[in-house]
């Protein structure tokens, strides 16, 4: 059992949870993720570790309501317990002092980007961060990102905060202005696809962190497989980070929808059950 120490909403449908998991707090590195299962009938879902505190023995995860499990998770509160948490999983981000690093995050992808921004900064890089969201209410981790970035650029679709436009617009402005040695892009698959196309134009080595479907997270099932440079890779053990210019994002987008109908049905049934309890 893993106790939730603190829960707060970062936006209407995005919650930050601080969970007691001392071993994971100690072992985790930027880029690692966990798999959790809320209760005995629950599914296993992967979530990136957004932060950790070794002294308190806690890890931080950020969840967005998109399905049954993430909805339940966002409704949990401090003092509640999660049945299973396992990790840290995946290969950690390769962190080195390369000069200038452009970190771009879209939507809730800003959460997994944060530990990388933090580690890149601590490694001595100049870090320029671009975070993007549909509108100002959906922008998360602005203060945290500002603390570890030499420059923070905020992009919103409607211009309600920062500049109006997509994440790629903000990235391109930076790239045209100064030499960027490496880029890290994390967000929805579509956003990563176009962010990768943007950096490819300028030959900037780019890493993307992939959020595929997983069951065990240890290489056992292969649900998370993606094509990278024409070769099938398991995101859980060889990733989650890959050369963004080699990832077949179209295939990944399609595979993310593998259970779309079943999950949409399950989610609407769950939401109905919540309503019937309330009424």
């Amino acid at each position, binding site marked *: 059992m893993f106790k939730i120490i603190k829960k707060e909403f970062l936006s209407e449908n995005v919650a930050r949870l601080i969970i007691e998991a001392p*071993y*994971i707090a*100690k*072992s985790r590195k930027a880029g690692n993720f966990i798999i959790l*299962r809320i209760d005995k*009938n*629950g*599914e*296993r879902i992967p979530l990136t570790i957004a932060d950790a505190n070794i002294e308190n023995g806690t890890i931080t995860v950020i969840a967005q309501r998109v399905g*049954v*499990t993430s909805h339940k998770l966002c409704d949990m509160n401090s003092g509640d317990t999660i*049945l*299973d*948490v*396992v*990790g*840290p*999983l995946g*290969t950690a981000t390769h962190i080195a002092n390369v000069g200038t690093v452009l970190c771009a995050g879209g939507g809730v992808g800003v959460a997994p980007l944060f530990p990388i921004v933090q580690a890149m900064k601590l490694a001595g890089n100049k870090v320029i961060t671009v975070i993007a969201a549909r509108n100002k209410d959906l922008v998360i981790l602005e203060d945290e990102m500002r603390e570890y970035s030499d420059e923070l650029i905020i992009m919103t679709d409607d211009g309600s905060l920062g500049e109006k436009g997509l994440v790629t617009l903000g990235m391109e402005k930076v790239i045209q202005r100064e030499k960027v040695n490496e880029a890290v892009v994390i967000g929805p698959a579509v956003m990563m696809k176009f962010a990768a196309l943007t950096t490819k134009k300028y030959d900037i080595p780019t890493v993307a962190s992939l959020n595929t479907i997983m*069951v*065990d997270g*240890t*290489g*056992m*099932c*292969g*649900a998370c*497989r*993606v*094509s990278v440079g024409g070769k*099938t890779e*398991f995101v859980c*053990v060889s990733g989650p980070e890959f050369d963004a210019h080699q990832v077949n994002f179209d*295939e990944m987008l*399609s*595979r993310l*929808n*593998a*259970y779309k109908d*079943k*999950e949409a049905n*399950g989610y609407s049934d769950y939401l109905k059950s919540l309503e019937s309890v309330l009424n």
Partner: protein
Amino acid sequence: MGTELDKEYYKKERKADWRDKLRKEIKSKDRTKGVRVHMPEADPNVRNRSNIEVNKGLTLEMAMSESSRCLDCAVPTCISGCPVGTNIPKFVKYIEKGDILGAAKVLKENNSLPAICGRVCPQEIQCEAQCVYVQKLSKEGSAIGYLERFAADYERESGNSSIPELAEFNGIKMAVIGSGPAGLTVAGELAKFGYDVTVFEALHDLGGVLKYGIPEFRLPKDIVDFEINTIKQMGVKFVTNFIVGKTATIDDLKEEGYKAFFIASGAGLPNFMNIPGENFNGIQSANEFLTRVNLMNGGDVDFDTPVHTGKNVVIVGGGNTAMDSVRTAKRMGAERAIIVYRRSQEEMPARTEEIKHAIEEGIEFMNLTSPIEYFADENGMVNKMRVQKMQLGEPDASGRRRPEVIEGSEHDIDVDSVVIAVGVSPNPIIQQSMPELETTKWNTIEVDDNMMTSVPGLFAGGDIVRGGATVILAMGDGRNAAKGMHNYIEKTILAEV
């Protein structure tokens, strides 16, 4: 299996008065007139719509009658066919005597998981193949597997389950990585030696492949839990959600006082064929399909995990995992559940019994057929597969005749779900975290005769050493490793005291 010492021991036990007396009660000639018992089975057209166990188990009368077929040979060749060296004639004769709890105790001398082995061991190529009936008399072997299951089930259902005798607790901490058959066996054996044993399991549930891999209709989960519970009662501690190499390293655990380690992390990396279209939706590994159904209860409305299955389901492969997958797909409502296998039925690695059960349940077999490409609809969901016919040529390195393509034999099959069951590779996590660990070119871990790896104090066994093998071979490794670990501790830690 079996040292000279063991052979002397078996001989001495055979001379026990009660065995002598029992042997004389029926003449061997009369014993050989008996016919091998048939396992009662659930109706194929009922069981292929439910999860009820296929084999129902023998009755007491059946078991006692079958046990009287055993000739209690002076040279018990059956034992040489058992990877864990079970004293087969001794337990069988206890059944003949009517002391079933006594028989169960004998099983537990060498085997912590008899109810499991009685169900999933390939006895027909192990103990039963070495039985004098098969070797000398051209008759069906003694039904050792059925009897093992009977004795273990009888004991469990009696509520008088015994716990093996344990040496005095020595407080020395031993770590076991993985709670599958190899890990459980080592844990049980080390507990018998008196060690303070902790098993670390990566998943949220215990049992490894016994839980996520083998389906309920072949191995009920309650039985796995019962056997694990016996090991718990022997003082073994279990920690779930703990991945050694990730959550903590071997070095971290050394700092916590663990003196020796057994790696039994299994062959948890499914192979794919790397043919075009294999990453379309609706195509999954057998591990994924079975894990979603067996471990996560996918398909049950009370559980959140989705699982993909369909009306026309093809399973690629001919091993036990392929049979488990195809029979699971049938139970989940497939109208056509088809095995596509590139050799003929004769070469199939699956157990004869599993193939027989599959045929009875209405599984279709497309043998001498191999997939070459998959096609999908506009949503990326598989809807067709292209296969080609094969013929058998000269024997290859495995001794089986090599499948060769029949040119121009390509044709398409309509499918809405495909499960790939073409083998597994070793799980890479421990090896990644310990570069000093010597591995083979297949990424299995190298071990010596005592199951010790290139790192002193670090032992390994089961599929992480063998690639994909069986439950009982993993358990055999576990028994050998426990002895190796005990010797290692005696030579190092205990020698210093």
